[in-house]
């Protein structure tokens, strides 16, 4: 991860005569220590700044008619500053010197392009003719002859490196659109010349180079926005003929047709580069900005817009960027960590269009990425031919059936889009019975998505049997096909909803509550004919008996009188109305609805997400659900083990949890409703009685244990006759 941190202004830029602010400065060189920089403007002044304090420490300027032509550098060995003005005059001064006129002066015979200063060695002077001299050698004989190495080529960029304790200078030149790279070793004096591959539409804008393990790498930013990497071949003692260097694309800064101008490139570490220039960003207005790119993963790490424009010059010293922004020289501190995949996901959205895919993309975790996504084609292609030949001979009248044998996923999916419901059911049944697919789950996902999409677009199309069949393959989950339950809710298909709730482990709470609402609002009579699975309720609801109960009214029978309210007893009072007692023992809802509600009780949820959706229930629904939960609770407590026998029956924990959730969600409603009053009161009494019972049991627990220990096992004696019932 790279990030741009604080930013501050170092100094203002003076618009010198003949050059607007857009031209920028002549150069910025590092000072004697990391906190000082030498700024040379395009006029006559060289200033030494202290970066952290943002103030100039010293300022030197040449006389009125003279201009500095080469940026001032600092000689690290001696601490002196060197500058060239008027192309040929060399000036060397120290901090104490005030007036540049009075300092050491040497006039040279050729024009100086740049002076490069390297730590622990003498500065190198590069002439515009391509010759290189060390400073000492030059000063020993300032008037010495300087040869012209490059002819008619213009030096565009130069840089100096230390290579095995020897300085190496690399510079690029241009002539008629051809670019050349020269590598000059000082000791021994060897010059290599290379030619860069030519690009038709673009030309290099900026170069930067670094050396690693004696290999020199050149990076260039072309005007089409590409950064190329060129590896310099290893140095040979005898220079051969001119070699053409090949380059490899390192990074493409996406620019749409606009040509980069005035951009520059800086290398931050082995995986990051900084680019200052125009970056194309929507809505297609080129803006100037500074951006840091990760070259390993080709991602943009960070960028900063420069609305006030920049001259395109960028320097990078000591984890700081120095660039011109508007009328000031800005310093931006950056942080650049080593690149890793997790950090380098970058900021740009991946706008690449993927390859052609026939269906919506699921991630198939079982398959390796190299394999084809839809592989059943490969598997099924082997067998169909032989199969069809054999069956053709024997069953000539079943030609249509033969063709169906070779059903592939694509055919099925395309048939789903247009065939009739019966055909689809038939095909699906065959497909499922034949299929021996390795990616069974994804295929089922495709199929059911296709079906549900068609259901959504065509309201009359509802292949219930197909959907039930697919769900019962137990390969589905909610997230594979989120719309399935929505469609089922629309059509109020309770059987399908029950299956989904039982099979899918990841039903969101919103959908669970929607199902709950739907279940509670359905009339019991309309549930009679439906195909709901009653396994979970038979252990406590006698189905035949309840059928008679359904005919009675649905009004809540409170079953208590005011006398009971005042008494504080735990026993169940025998009320004078026997039929009231009966209805209390009967389930308030029919067995189908009970089975559906049990499916809700079993589904997974998390409280924080469920409560807001639970509030959607109406008051009557809440009361009905609470009555059912109360009935379950009482029935559950009748068993010694506090649970129902059987596999899918609700457990006491689930009952209690849902009761608490309901009361939490609808507390105010429940407290206000008159019907709820009786329900809550009986529930409260029951629970209070249980709690009291358990606390009393706890008190006598010790004595009971003693009694059991003292009393021997039930002694039948030598002979006894007992009754045994076997069912």
């Amino acid at each position, binding site marked *: 991860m790279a990030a741009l941190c604080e930013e501050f202004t170092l100094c203002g830029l003076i618009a010198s005569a003949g050059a607007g602010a857009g031209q920028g400065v002549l150069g910025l060189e590092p000072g004697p220590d990391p906190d000082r920089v030498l700024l040379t403007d395009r006029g006559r002044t060289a200033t030494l700044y202290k970066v952290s304090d943002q103030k100039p420490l010293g300022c030197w300027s040449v006389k009125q008619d003279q201009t500095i032509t080469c940026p001032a550098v600092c000689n690290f060995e001696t601490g002196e500053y060197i500058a060239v003005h008027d192309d040929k005059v060399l000036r060397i001064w120290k901090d104490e010197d005030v007036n540049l006129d009075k300092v050491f002066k040497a006039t040279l015979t050729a024009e100086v392009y740049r002076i490069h200063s390297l730590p622990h060695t003498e500065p190198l002077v590069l002439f515009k003719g391509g010759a290189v001299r060390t400073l000492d050698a030059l000063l020993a004989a300032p008037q010495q002859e300087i040869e012209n190495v490059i002819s008619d080529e213009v030096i565009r960029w130069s840089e100096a490196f230390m290579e095995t304790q020897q300085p190496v200078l690399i510079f690029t030149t241009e002539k008629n659109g051809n670019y050349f790279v020269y590598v000059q070793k000082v000791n021994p004096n060897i010059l290599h010349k290379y030619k860069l591959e030519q690009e038709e539409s673009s030309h290099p804008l900026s170069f930067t180079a670094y050396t690693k393990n004696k290999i020199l790498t050149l990076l260039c930013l072309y005007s089409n926005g590409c950064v190329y990497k060129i590896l310099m071949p290893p140095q040979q003692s005898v220079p051969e003929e001119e070699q053409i260097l090949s380059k490899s694309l390192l990074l493409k800064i996406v620019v749409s047709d606009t040509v980069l101008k005035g951009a520059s490139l800086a290398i931050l570490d082995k995986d990051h580069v900084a680019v200052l220039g125009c970056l194309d960003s929507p809505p297609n207005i080129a803006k100037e900005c500074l951006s840091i790119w990760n070259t390993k993963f080709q991602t943009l790490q960070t960028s900063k817009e420069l609305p006030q424009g920049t001259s395109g010059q960028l320097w990078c010293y000591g984890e700081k960027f120095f660039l011109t922004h508007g009328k000031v020289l800005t310093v931006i501190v950056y942080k650049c960590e080593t690149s890793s995949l997790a950090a380098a996901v970058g900021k740009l959205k991946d706008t690449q269009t993927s390859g052609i895919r026939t269906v919506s993309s699921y991630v198939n975790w079982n398959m390796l990425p190299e394999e084809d996504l839809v592989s059943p084609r490969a598997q099924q292609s082997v067998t169909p031919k032989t199969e069809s030949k054999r069956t053709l001979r024997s069953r000539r009248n079943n030609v249509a059936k033969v063709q169906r044998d070779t059903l592939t996923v694509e055919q099925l999916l395309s048939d789903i889009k247009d065939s009739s419901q019966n055909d689809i059911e038939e095909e699906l049944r065959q497909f499922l019975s034949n299929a021996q697919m390795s990616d069974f789950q994804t295929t089922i996902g495709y199929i059911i998505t296709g079906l549900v999409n068609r259901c959504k677009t065509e309201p009359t199309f509802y292949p219930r049997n197909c959907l039930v069949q697919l769900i019962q393959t137990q390969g589905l989950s909610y997230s594979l096909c989120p719309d399935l339950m929505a469609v089922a809710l629309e059509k109020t298909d309770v059987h399908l909803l029950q299956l989904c709730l039982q099979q899918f482990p990841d039903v969101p709470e919103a959908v669970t509550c929607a199902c709950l609402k739907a279940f509670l609002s359905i009339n019991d009579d309309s549930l009679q004919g439906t195909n709901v699975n009653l396994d979970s309720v*038979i*252990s406590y609801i*006698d*189905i*035949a008996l309840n059928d008679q109960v359904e005919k009675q009214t649905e009004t809540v029978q409170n079953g208590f009188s005011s006398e009971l309210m005042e008494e504080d007893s735990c026993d169940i009072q025998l009320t004078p109305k026997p039929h009231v007692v009966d209805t209390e023992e009967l389930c308030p809802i029919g067995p189908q609805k009970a089975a559906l509600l049990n499916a809700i009780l079993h589904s997974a949820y998390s409280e924080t997400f469920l409560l807001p959706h639970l509030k959607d229930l109406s008051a009557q629904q809440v009361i009905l659900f609470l009555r059912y939960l109360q009935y379950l609770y009482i029935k559950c407590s009748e*068993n010694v083990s506090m649970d129902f*026998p059987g596999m899918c029956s609700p457990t006491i924990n689930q009952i209690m949890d849902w009761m608490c959730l309901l009361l939490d969600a609808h507390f105010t409603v429940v407290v206000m409703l008159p019907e709820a009053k009786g329900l809550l009161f009986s529930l409260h009494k029951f629970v209070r009685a249980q709690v009291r019972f358990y606390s009393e049991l706890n008190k006598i627990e010790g004595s009971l244990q003693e009694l059991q220990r003292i009393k021997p096992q039930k002694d*039948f*004696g*030598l*002979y*006894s*006759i*007992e*009754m*045994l*019932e*076997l*069912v």
Partner: protein
Amino acid sequence: MGEFQVHRVRFFAYVPAGIRCVAHSPRSARLALARTDGALEVYNFAANYFQEKGIPGHETRSTEALCWTAGDRLFGAGLGGDISEYDLEKLRVKYSLDGFGGPIWSMAADPSGTQLAVGCEDGSVKLFQVLPDKIQFERSLDRQKGRVMSLSWHPSGTRIAVGSIDLLRVFDVKSGHAIQRILVDRRLQGLYSRECVVWSVAFLSNGTIVSSDSVGKVQFWDSEKGTLLETHPVSSSAVLCLAVSEEEDSIVVGTSEGAVYQFQLLPVKWGSAESKWVRTKPFQHHTHDVRAVAHSATALISGGLDAQLVIRPLMEKVHGKGYDAALRKFTFPHRRLVSCAKKAGLLLFQFPQHLELWRLGATNSAGKDGDILPVSRAPEHLLQLKSKGPEHICCSCISLCGSWIAYSTASRLHLHRVHLENGSVSVKRVSKVPKLLCSAHQLLCSADSTSLFVASDQGAVHVLKLLEPGGCGHLQTLRPNSGSTEAVYLLAASADGDWLAAAGGDWEINVYSLRHFKPHCTVPAYNCAVTALAIHPVTNNLVITHSDQQVFEFSIPDREYTTWSRKVQQHGLHKGWLERDMPITHIAFNPKQPTHILLHDTHMFCILDKSLPLPDDATPLMNQTSLKQLSEKARRGHAHAFKICKKYQVSVLM
């Protein structure tokens, strides 16, 4: 389904005799067990640890040592001074040879199984040669002072280690001389005066002798130099027995406190070649002295005076967590000891030396499931028949009407006529019982009480006619077609008197027609022991249970398995049923419900309803409690054929 009145009878005071010695035969996966009353039992490990053979005890016989020799022959020697060979086909003692050395304390067969070394009271070790039909005295090794308590052969067969009182000696077999004499410490600490009895020794192939003594230590000796290698104090009381595994890396010892310990040869450091014997696992399964231990390849076997045989599989040797890894405890014999005269409401109890006849009580009231009804008439002890002679009773039976009682010892068959009138009982012995040369292994009265079926060896079943007022005559002898020589140990007769089924020691079941007195058919062979047989009174289907818990139903008139039986085989029995460790010992039927079969083993009884569906492994087998909570209609959906009740544990008859 039904309500039943259950008579819970707890006055059958049968005390099984303690186990004195065991011998394990790894080749045939069998264990021979001798009890203190002289009875011998053979357990077949491969057939789910079924007690397949039993020889009744004898008053004077006291077996101190058992061993298997080559050819699966079993020899026993005891304090009577005799060496006996047991005939496992005819289930009796073949012959006995006097050792002429006084009481025999120990016996061991040499590794090749051709020689027997016998340690006697007089201090001599006698060698006998095992010949094909007898044993012959070969010679005697040097006599030593002090009785030979234990002896063990070296795996090479050239040396014998002998343990006696305070001493261990090593004899060279060829010369007969003692080549090493080792003094065993009398004490570790404490009193010096009590002598130390070396109860058992084992000779390992590397020359190490392992000894266990009455002080409670297990010691390892070097037989070459006669020095002590290691001492392990195991208990404060005697260590009575030890056994070494075949690979000689594990030793099991039993103490008189009822504990069993395992010693293992483990490397001192991981990967080092040097190894030491370390006491690893303790087991406490017995309440009294452990007098015999054996080491099979996968399990430790121990038997003691508490009459229990405990087989403890070693977890590291058993693969998987199946039922092979379970601990098994056998206390009661797998044979029928109680007979019931259904019509008369009488019970006959078989004890080793006498029989008791009881009348069941009655009640007048009715009740619900789980009620204990008040007994209006208490059970009565009507009769006690003592058997004469030292031999123990082998088998007994009572006719359905209660008027005939028959029992047999190893040599004689006794028949008695019982008259029950108005509360008084009189019994008269039938004197002229046909002298059968062979002993009876099973007795059964026919349904109409007119015939007595006597199962004897050589696969034959004798049919005796019971004549009023008190006589009997030999009617017929039924022999199987295959000419097997094994003794028949199970009989079943049909209610209409037409058919008789007999199962012999070779696991062959023959069905005879009683009308024509000849073999009718043979049930297809099944490679597991038969544990119970019964013929349905109405359909004449023969129900067979095997020791691997399989249940078959064979239709006698049609001579083939019934469709229900085929369905059971195809569907497979429930895992919980197959994993029971006790075999079914009795099958009965409910006359009012022709589709019901009643089965029971030691821990449970089950009513198998053939009309209900069979359970698969996913449904619980013991579903009575859960079924009782459901309503009627729901029960029908969930009920399956096996209705198991475990309320009455350790039942010997149902």
